[in-house]
Structure formats: structure tokens, C-alpha cells
């Protein structure tokens, strides 16, 4: 499929409700493109999180189920174990994946579930309007860290991908961003590779995407992109964090 | 006919096995039976017990408060269950491990050195079956033959070599005077 500008078949025509500049819409599209390119739309089952991306099931043109807050890895496990030949992926925010759902995240990874996790790290709780996330940077002002995140009170930003490295069950861990055309392309490659790994039965893959949330960061869109580049990427460096396959992107 | 029996002793004395063996035999005779074990943390405390009810008609509660009979293999269990025996009930004691002359009000108390007898047979772990043999001689709720057949069913898979010694123990208890 070589439709560069057209709508991927895996996206519906429903207009999404994300804020201007938000990274969610871009990543939805990347996933849709990858699924089209791999020709697996008709055997894909997605799991939408609780978070700003809760309506993802309206935007993707394949089977999608919701999951309660933090539990997409458990729901994905249930689906994938029953239907091992389908493509199963979760789409989760940092609150969903790394706070309330950290146990499910770690254990699905540790079991080496043959699923793909797309992790949107925007360092904030978007949907509930701007509270601290486990990935919020030190000093970051949120509605629940009005004086800036202080380690003594609120701990440190969690590097999820690095955290999962030691687990034998993880096959591929990579971090990308959607702040520039170049990074978007790289992120897409990582997502594609993650799905390919699942299709070849090689196990658990997770792609972390640094994303911007201008309204809750209280920034303009250009400022938020700058913040991703300057601050986020310093704390969360881009690149492949683990790759057991030896395949190159 | 309705018989409520509590079997009690140390964990490792085969208390649960004695209960299931008797239940299996009762079932094979077409009787109604329920078996209820103590479980979980309680078992870790050192004593184990189980409740077996055998009857001609269907059985309600598997929990026994005041048993018709007690089969007691160690001393702590006597203190715990002795007082709960029904008036006029039967108490079979393993006198090898329970020496003192505790009198149980009004009941029929039968002592047999089950552990000694088992040792003589050459398998100390069958004291439970010796005691069961004696109990069956006194309360003929199921036949000795049925228990023999039940032994074959329960031990057929993993412990076939133990069938004979268990049968010997059953007989020794049954015939103990």
C-alpha cells in the first residue's frame, strides 16, 4: 500500500477530539499505517486505555475493546492467549501504564506475552486535566505538584523502558518521539518493527513515544515541542533500549 | 443409621487419608457420606482432623459439632475433641501416644497401642489404619472387606506397594482384644 497522504484504511473518518498539537492523533495514524502496510487489519484487535485516548476505538477501523484504567495488558493477555494468531496491541498513557497499571505492565512483559504495547509518555495525566504522572519531570509544575515535582515528596520520573530491560520476557524496547518529521518517521519504524516481532512470534515488544500535551503543560504548541526536545529527551533518551532479535530497524 | 465421626492426630499421621479411606468404603457400599477436612493454617498448627458422616439417608451439614465417635491418635487432640463427644459415644484412643487415664464422661473408651502394633507390623505409619480397624470392629458401619477394597482404589495409582501392609494393619486393629 503506497498511499502517502491519503487516509489509511485502518483509520475511520471520525474526526478526533484531541487538542491542537497533541501527539495522540499522530501515533494513532502511525499505528494505522503500519497495520495497513503489514496487511493485518482484519486480524488486529486493539485495546484502548482510560486516558485521553479512550475514544481510540472510534478512530481505528478494526476491532477494538476498552479496558479499565491500567488493565490493558491483562485484557490483551486474555485475548492473545485465546486467539494466538491475531495481532493484539495495547495503547496506553503513562498514568494508565506506569501508575495504576504498573503491575499488569511488568507481569505481561515478564511472561513475554506476544503482544505489542504502544506507550504514550506525555509526562502528565491528560484526561483528568493535568495532574502529575509517574513520568512527570522533576521540577515540572502540574495541578498536583503546584510547586514543581520534588523527589522528596513525589519520587522520581520512571524510565519505563529501561525498567523493563532486565526482564527476560521482553524482546524489543524502543523510545521515539513525534516532535518532528524525522522523529515521526523513526517512531513509525519502531512501531512497525514491534508489530513484526509479534507477527513472527518473538514475544513482548513495547514502543514508548514521547508526546506533547500543550494545554496541560500550559504551553503553546511550539513551546511544547521545544520542551519535548530539551527536557523530555534528556530524561528519556531516544533509541532502541533492548533488541533481542538482532533485526535492524 | 447415621454415624458422625471425628478423626484427629498429628499432621503426618495420615488423618486425612483415614477419613477418605472410610468415606470411599462407605460410598462403595452405597451409603451416603460426607468428608470434611481441617485445612489451611489450621493444619500447620501440628494437629489435623477431619469429620466423616455416614448415613442411610442423604446428609445435610458435613460439619460435626458433637460426634458419635472419636478416633484420637495424639494427646493434644484428646483435649480438643474429647469434651465434644456425644453422651454415650465411642472414643478410640492410641494408647502408645496417650498414656494418661483421661476419663470421658459416660462414653465407651477403648484404648489400643496403635503405634506399637504398627511398629510390630513393620510400618509405623499405619497406626492410623490399626486404629481404624479397631473402630470398625466396634462400630460396624462399613465392612472390613469394603475398607480393603477402598485401600486398593486409593493406593492403586501411586502407592501400590503399601496396600498389603495397610490391609495387615486393618486386620490387626480389627482383631485386637
Amino acid at each position, binding site marked *: 500500500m503506497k498511499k502517502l497522504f491519503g487516509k489509511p484504511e485502518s483509520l475511520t473518518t471520525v474526526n478526533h477530539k484531541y487538542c491542537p498539537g497533541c501527539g495522540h492523533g499522530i501515533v494513532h495514524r502511525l499505528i494505522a499505517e503500519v497495520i495497513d502496510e503489514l496487511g493485518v487489519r*482484519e486480524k*488486529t484487535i486493539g485495546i484502548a486505555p482510560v486516558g485521553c485516548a479512550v475514544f481510540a476505538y472510534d478512530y481505528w477501523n478494526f476491532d477494538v475493546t476498552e479496558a479499565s484504567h491500567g*488493565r490493558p495488558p491483562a485484557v490483551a493477555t486474555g485475548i492473545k492467549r485465546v486467539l494466538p494468531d491475531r495481532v493484539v496491541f495495547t495503547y496506553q498513557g503513562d498514568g494508565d501504564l506506569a501508575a495504576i497499571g504498573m503491575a499488569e505492565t511488568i507481569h505481561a512483559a515478564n511472561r513475554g506475552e506476544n503482544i505489542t504495547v504502544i506507550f504514550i509518555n506525555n509526562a502528565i495525566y491528560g484526561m483528568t486535566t493535568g495532574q502529575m504522572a509517574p513520568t512527570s519531570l522533576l521540577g515540572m509544575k502540574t495541578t498536583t505538584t503546584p510547586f514543581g515535582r520534588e523527589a522528596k515528596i513525589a519520587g522520581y520520573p520512571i524510565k519505563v523502558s529501561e525498567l523493563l530491560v532486565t526482564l527476560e520476557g521482553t524482546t524489543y524496547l524502543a523510545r521515539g518521539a513525534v516532535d518532528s518529521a524525522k522523529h515521526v518517521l523513526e517512531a513509525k519504524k519502531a512501531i512497525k518493527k514491534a508489530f513484526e516481532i509479534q507477527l513472527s512470534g518473538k514475544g513482548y515488544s513495547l514502543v514508548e513515544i514521547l508526546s506533547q500535551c500543550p494545554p496541560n503543560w500550559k504551553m503553546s504548541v511550539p513551546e511544547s515541542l521545544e520542551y519535548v526536545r530539551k527536557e523530555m529527551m534528556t530524561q528519556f533518551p531516544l533509541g532502541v533500549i533492548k533488541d533481542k532479535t538482532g533485526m535492524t530497524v | 443409621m447415621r454415624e458422625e465421626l471425628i478423626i484427629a492426630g498429628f499432621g503426618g499421621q495420615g488423618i486425612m487419608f483415614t477419613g477418605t479411606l472410610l468415606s470411599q468404603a462407605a460410598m462403595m457400599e452405597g451409603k451416603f457420606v460426607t468428608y470434611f477436612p481441617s*485445612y489451611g493454617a*489450621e493444619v500447620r498448627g501440628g494437629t489435623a482432623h477431619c469429620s466423616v458422616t455416614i448415613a442411610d439417608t442423604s446428609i445435610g451439614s458435613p460439619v460435626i459439632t458433637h460426634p458419635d465417635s472419636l478416633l484420637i491418635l495424639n494427646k493434644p487432640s484428646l483435649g480438643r475433641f474429647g469434651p465434644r463427644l456425644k453422651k454415650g459415644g465411642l472414643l478410640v484412643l492410641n494408647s502408645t501416644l496417650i498414656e494418661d487415664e483421661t476419663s470421658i464422661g459416660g462414653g465407651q473408651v477403648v484404648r489400643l497401642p496403635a503405634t506399637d502394633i504398627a511398629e510390630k507390623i513393620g510400618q509405623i505409619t499405619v497406626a492410623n489404619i490399626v486404629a481404624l480397624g479397631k473402630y470398625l470392629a466396634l462400630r460396624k458401619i462399613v465392612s472390613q472387606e469394603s475398607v480393603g477394597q477402598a485401600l486398593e482404589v486409593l493406593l492403586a495409582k501411586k502407592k501400590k506397594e503399601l496396600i498389603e501392609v495397610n490391609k495387615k494393619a486393618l486386620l490387626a486393629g480389627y482383631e485386637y482384644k
Partner: protein
Amino acid sequence: MKQLMKGSAALGEGAIQAGGGAYFGYPITPQNELTEYMSRRMLEERRVFIQAESELAAINMVFGASVAGARAMTSSSSPGVSLKQEGISYMAGCELPGLIVNVQRGGPGLGNISGSQADYFQAVRGGGHGDYQVIVLTPASVQEMYEMPSMAFSLSEKYRTPALILTDGILAQMQEPMELVKINAARSGDQSWILDGCKGRAPRKIRSLLMEEGALEAHNRHLQKKYIEIKNKEQRYQLINEQAEIMLVAYGVSARVCYTAVQEANRKGLKVGLLRPITVWPFPEKIIQELVPQVKAFLVIELSAGQMVEDVNLAVNGKTPVYFYGRAGGACVTPEEVIKEIGKI
């Protein structure tokens, strides 16, 4: 041919014979034997078994497996079932079938590990958030432990709502003769909602989030209509001594205690009977209403401080006296105590 079987194993085997395709559990006494049984048998049958990292994960794995079209189940005991409530609410909202087993133990809190019936309210009043019901079945023998999963799966699929088997530590641990009769494993109900990839059809979604104006209210109306249909069609019970003047009402293990008491009382010439609800949601209120003119008193027996008695009271509606006797905290009522209570009436 009859065989001795433990209640928990019978339930597990019953679920397997009923075509249970996926089991997810987390250890907790007194239901460990069920998880252990499934860990062996499900793999022997080449079906899905996972020891989950928590009850939260387990119920959400059930959610996923159900989305994918499997007969899915989980089991736990009281504290673990509290943790599952969010997932059960989501399943009810998404109209997903599935089976939850609660082997009740004494509470509140960590409580103890003795059998109990103190989670009745949680089971029949919804349990989690939102206006919903789950179908609640209560076995009273090892035979029923074996046969009930099939009934639970079928009802759950027919009405697309989770079903719960409400049992307790005593029934799960006890053994008695039972027969491995043939079990119906046929899937029931419409299956045009399952997510298995959109090949040859339009994509489907499963969701309970309904933010559009009026959508959630309409969904709730639809759910309530379904619950009313279940209430009308699926009340199940067992009645012993229809002509009794004093009618005991008890489910599960306390019904067994009452059964012994009824035998005793009848021997003494007392006209005592037993109504044993098999479904506690829907509660068998119709039969209670039918019994009202003839019964002089109802006596409700529970291993709790008094929960089901509320449903009896609602059904009787003040037309006949309703008495209650129960023991809480994992203590078991004895037949003697029941006889004594009958004497007080």
C-alpha cells in the same frame, strides 16, 4: 459410577466439561485447590491457564478472553472478589459473559479462612459501581458444584452478563460421592459481538463509555430490561415439604445444615420445610409470595449477620413473620441451633 470428589475439584472439572476455555486465578485460601486443579487440568486439555499477578489482573484477563469469544472464568475468595468488582462492573457494562467463583470466607478485612456467607450483599446487589446485576448461583452439594458452571456459562451467554457462583470454604473443601455426568458444553446466545478480527465484516468495538447525550441512559434502560427478563424467567430454587407451616430459607452450606434440622424436626412431628434458593439473584421471590398464605413463619438461616433475610422480607412484604438466625465471622450454624430457633417461634 459414583466417586468421591472435593467440592473445589468438582467445580473445576465441571467448568472444564462445560467447555471452559480460559481460567485465570490468584492464590487465596480456601479456594487454592480450585486454582491448583485448573493449573493441571487446563493444560492437559490444552486450554488457557494463567496464574495472574493479582485478582485485578485475573478478572481483566477474563474480560479479554471473553472479548475474544472464550468461555472464561476466574475464582477467588472474599478479599480477592472485592478486588474484582471493578472488572465485573466493566463486564456488565460491556455486556460480556464470564464466570466468577467466590469461595466465601469470614470477613471483614482479612478475616479468617473458614467458610462463610457474608458476601451475599456484594454478590446480589451488584458489588461494584453502577446499576447492574450479575446472575448468582449457589450450589449446595459437590454434585451441584460440578454441574453449576455449565448453567452459569449458559445463562451468562444467553443474557450477556457475568455470572457468579457463590459458594464457601466448607463446600469447596468437603468431599462426598458424586457422578461425573455428561455436561452441556454448547455455547448459547448471540455471538455477533466477539472480537476476532474484522475479516469479512465491519469492525466491532466493545465499550461501556457512553458520553453522547442520552446514550448512557438508553444503555441503562436496555440493561434494566434485560435484568427484568432474567428476574421473570430464571428464578430457581428447591422446596422441601411444600405443606410446612414453618419454612426455613437458606442457601448453600446453611441449606445443608437446615436440611438436617428439617429431618430432625419432622421426626418430632413438627411441620417444618426448607426453601433453598438456587439463584439468589434473581431471588426466588415468586415462590415465597406463593408460600405466604400457608406458611405461619419464615426462618432465614445464614452464615452471616443477616443479609439474604432482607430479600425474604422484601418478598414477604410484612404479610408473614420473618425470623433470622445466623452466625458471622466464619462460624457455622449447627442443626441443633436451628431446632432451638424453630422452638422459639
